[in-house]
């Protein structure tokens, strides 16, 4: 999964998609994941980083990550 290169995310979690004009407010964990994606990390690496930092089991994390990526895809924020 790759975040589109021109997506802008501000410090306070405001995200702007310049292709569609859509804007979103993301929570701190979503912002963290988006930053990892921006840095080019793959899903496995991101999962590991989240597991290390937060109290969450792998099954819950993977389910939530899948939902999150579906949402990103739906909103045209990922490179196809």
């Amino acid at each position, binding site marked *: 999964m790759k975040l589109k290169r021109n997506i*802008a995310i501000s410090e306070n979690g405001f995200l702007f998609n*310049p*292709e*569609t*004009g859509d804007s979103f407010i993301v929570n701190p964990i979503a912002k963290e994941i988006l930053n990892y994606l921006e840095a080019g990390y793959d899903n496995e690496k991101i999962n590991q980083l989240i597991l290390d930092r937060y109290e969450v089991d792998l099954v819950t994390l993977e389910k939530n990550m899948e939902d999150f990526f579906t949402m990103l895809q739906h909103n045209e924020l990922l490179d196809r």
Partner: protein
Amino acid sequence: MEKPKFNIAVTGLNNTDNPGPGIPVIRGLKESKDFDVRIIGLAYENLEPGIYMRDLVDKTYQIPYPSSGKEAVLERIEYINSKENLDFIIPNLDAELYTFIQSKEKLEKMGIRTFLPSMQQFEERHKANLNEYGDKYGIKVPFSKSITNRRDIEELKEDFEYPLLVKGKFYDAYLAYTPEQVNTHFNKISAKWGLPVIIQEFIRGTEVNVIALGDGHGNTVGAVPMRKQYITDKGKAWGGITIQDNKMLDLTKSLIKQTKWRGGMELELIKTNQNEYFLIEINPRIPAWVYLAVAAGQNLPEAMIKLAFGMDVPNYSEYEVGKMFIRYSYDLIGDIAQFGSLSVTGEM
């Protein structure tokens, strides 16, 4: 070197919740670093807000509606020209373009330039001709049909699925879910804008717009795509944001190249969820949100004047993405004497 000064007449000073492009065009012109302008407002009604914006409009004259006939309009312009020595006229409303395009030569004889599409360019992009236009220039357009009689409404179910759009030939568009609703909209639109009324297939998606300026030789001087963020109950953009959309720009440039469009234009498009673009309308003039393009780095009104006067014209290829506009209303304070002057003498 001293900057040239142009006397420019501008229409469309109705800066209300259904704004004309006059005021934003003037703002663009006044920001030019290469020429100075004296703005002569041409107003149809004596409560058009632009008349009272004295920092933008230097002098205003009332002009007759286009429905009074070309001769009446030209006669009035001749009088205004004798007082103001006009260099250029920017008509900003669809309904008056026919008169101004037809009067190009007469205006030139008076020493007044315009920068408008040809009659053929103007005619072929009419809403009623959109299907042929799409076929000719290779652009997807929603299926549409012109109707001139209420009796035609019942037969629409053969060609259309509901909901569908009911549109006036110049302005207004309503969504209708039933033949009864089509009938109501047909009556309202035909009474206001005349016939035909255009029935258009409803395409689901996001409305996106491009403002552009063609030099008349097939080149696009500038183009800026925008997405409306807030739409009023009149369907007008009250807020919008510039977007980065190369497909829209390519489509615009291809159209200008093929048609050799001369002047300002606005393409109204629907972008579907499958990333397809349908052209729903071409406005043959600068749209009311032009100041967003100016703010994003493309002063298209200024470029239009430069084109007309043979000055060096920028070839805009960049603009700032994520630039926003938000309209607001503001109470201008006038004096009854101003209103009186315009009402009695037709000028202020």
